[in-house]
């Protein structure tokens, strides 16, 4: 420090407490690297446990920061730790922990590179936690890359499988193309406003007259994010990638990456563009409507459960986008939209991870994710069948499962501004949910009514880590569904997204 001071460099103002969750993750990454490098074969079994413990350890500073309750802002507001950031950090870390639970047996029993798998997972999670706090263009972009690039490689992790390679390749090319487009939009924003801070950008592009270039930049940025959250028509990579990637990675992409994409989109749109609702609102409105309709219609005719969950995930992205389409009407509608999106993302993470946990458990016996292979599941593994039904009906939005509360917050956010656009979108959400009920119910029917396809009714042995993952996700789905105020206390707080530094 003194050496730096001697040559006239000020120490950057670091708040170590605010950075603690990220520092724990970096430390975990280093430990994993060293153990993997010097521990030899015997240390392999320790990888998932170490990763799990590290992720839970990173939750401790998140909790102390939340208890502290102070909005911490660094670098002129480029990096902010507020309740909004903390909620998502906690969400990413817990979702990451569940993904580790899902991966433990899957990765250990398959022919995979195990140590590196967990290293990349931690690197990607680090990108997500940074994303939750990022409040300027450069941080947002780099956090997005840090969470995406390891994910591209994880999607291709099943090295000898042509499907997995195709998954990795498609995901990679689409992702890189999307970030290039996003960057072009960001460069225009920087040029017009002279700043990369989201708050400054909002101030600089204010005005009733909208130059074409501002519109172009906003559209490019939103389109870049639309790829990441797999909104139609930028969703084409999602089904192939989800189907081809190793299933725990699919769960990670469907929940973690998607949630992080939404966090980025929401932060940028609500902090940098709130003064330009006339540009982003119609765009997001159209994306949301098309995504819901197309995602659900294509999901109807899927025969593979993972692919169906991929399209259902596309449709869910439409629901999550919807509140943002009316977020620019007033401050109240923006607050409602943030609350709805955050609530839905938490619930979506629980029910989707749970559904993938069942898929992994069933595939251990049947080796297949075809919907037909779930026939008779209730007769030989009733617990798994009931868990799966809980997740599917929660995804469909049936009370008293958590999904209904998520849908409710979305409806409330859409109706709040009292605009025609909001009402129409609310109707589309309702119709799409009805369509969705068909394909979710069809899977339930196969599990409960149809006979087992080959008459094999030996029960499925669920390993402990998978059972733990199922317990966590079922518990969240049920508790939030019955007692939504638990979640509402967190997401409904007044100063939730502290806009600015």
């Amino acid at each position, binding site marked *: 420090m003194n050496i730096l001071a001697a040559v006239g460099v000020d120490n950057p103002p670091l708040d170590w407490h605010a950075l603690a969750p990220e520092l724990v993750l970096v430390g975990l990454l280093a430990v994993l690297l060293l153990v993997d490098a010097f521990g030899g074969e015997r240390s392999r079994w320790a990888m998932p446990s170490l990763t799990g413990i590290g992720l839970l350890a990173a939750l401790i500073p998140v909790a102390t920061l939340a208890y502290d309750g102070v909005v911490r802002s660094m670098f002129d507001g480029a990096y902010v730790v507020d309740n909004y950031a903390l909620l998502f950090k906690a969400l990413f870390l817990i979702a990451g922990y569940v993904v580790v639970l899902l991966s433990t047996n899957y990765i250990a029993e398959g022919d995979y590179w195990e140590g590196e798998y967990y290293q990349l997972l931690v690197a990607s999670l680090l990108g997500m936690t940074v994303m939750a706090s990022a409040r300027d263009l450069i941080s947002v*972009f780099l956090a997005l890359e840090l969470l995406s690039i390891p994910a591209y490689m994880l999607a291709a992790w099943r090295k000898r499988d042509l499907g997995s*390679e195709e998954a990795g390749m498609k995901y*990679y090319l689409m992702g890189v193309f999307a970030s*290039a487009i996003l960057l072009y939009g960001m460069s225009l924003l920087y*040029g017009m406003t002279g*700043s990369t801070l989201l708050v400054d950008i909002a101030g600089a592009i204010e005005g009733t007259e909208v130059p074409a270039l501002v519109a172009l930049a906003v559209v490019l940025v939103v389109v870049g994010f639309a790829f990441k959250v797999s909104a139609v028509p930028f969703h084409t990579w999602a089904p192939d990638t989800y189907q081809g990637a190793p299933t725990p990675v699919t769960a990670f992409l469907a929940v973690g990456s998607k949630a992080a994409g939404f966090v980025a989109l929401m932060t940028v749109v609500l902090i940098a563009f709130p003064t330009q609702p006339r540009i982003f609102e119609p765009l997001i409105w159209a994306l949301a409507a098309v995504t819901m309709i197309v995602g659900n219609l294509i999901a109807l005719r899927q025969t593979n459960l993972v692919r169906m969950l991929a399209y259902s995930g596309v449709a869910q992205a439409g629901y999550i986008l919807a509140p943002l389409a009316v977020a620019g009407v007033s401050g109240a509608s923006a607050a409602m939209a943030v609350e709805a999106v955050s609530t839905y993302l938490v619930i979506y993470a629980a029910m989707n991870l749970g559904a993938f946990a069942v898929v992994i458990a069933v595939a251990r016996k049947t080796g297949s994710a075809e919907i037909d292979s779930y026939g008779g599941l209730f007769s030989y593994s009733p617990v798994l069948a009931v868990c799966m039904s809980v997740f599917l009906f929660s995804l469909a939005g049936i009370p008293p499962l958590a999904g209904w509360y998520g849908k409710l917050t979305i409806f409330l956010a859409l109706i709040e501004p009292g605009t025609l656009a909001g009402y129409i979108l609310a109707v589309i959400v309702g119709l799409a949910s009805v369509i969705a009920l068909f394909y979710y119910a069809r899977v339930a029917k196969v599990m409960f009514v149809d006979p087992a396809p080959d008459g094999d009714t030996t029960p499925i042995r669920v390993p402990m880590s998978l059972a733990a993952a199922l317990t966590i996700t079922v518990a969240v789905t049920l508790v939030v569904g019955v007692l939504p105020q638990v979640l509402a206390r967190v997401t409904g707080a007044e100063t939730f997204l502290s806009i600015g530094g």
Partner: protein
Amino acid sequence: MLLNQFLLLAAVLFCIGVYGVLTRRNGVMVLMSIELILNAVNINLIAFGTYLSDATGQAFALFIIAVAAAEVGVGLAIVLMLFRNRRSIDIDAVDQLKG
């Protein structure tokens, strides 16, 4: 010099890159087209940095160059794996013949 000289040149490169991404079937060539787009972005950033007398433009461009290097490394690893996998099937067959 006008600021727009640079911006328009960047726009041309951006559109050439988009054309390449849409028409190329070879993964490596798609990747090269994406590099064109990234370079268009960097021209924008440097030109804006000079115009605004602000070092942020250069800093942003340097970050993009670093990320591009990581992206290309990963992309080529995936391409290589795709290729090796298909060829390795043949090599296995040869090994079996040798017994």
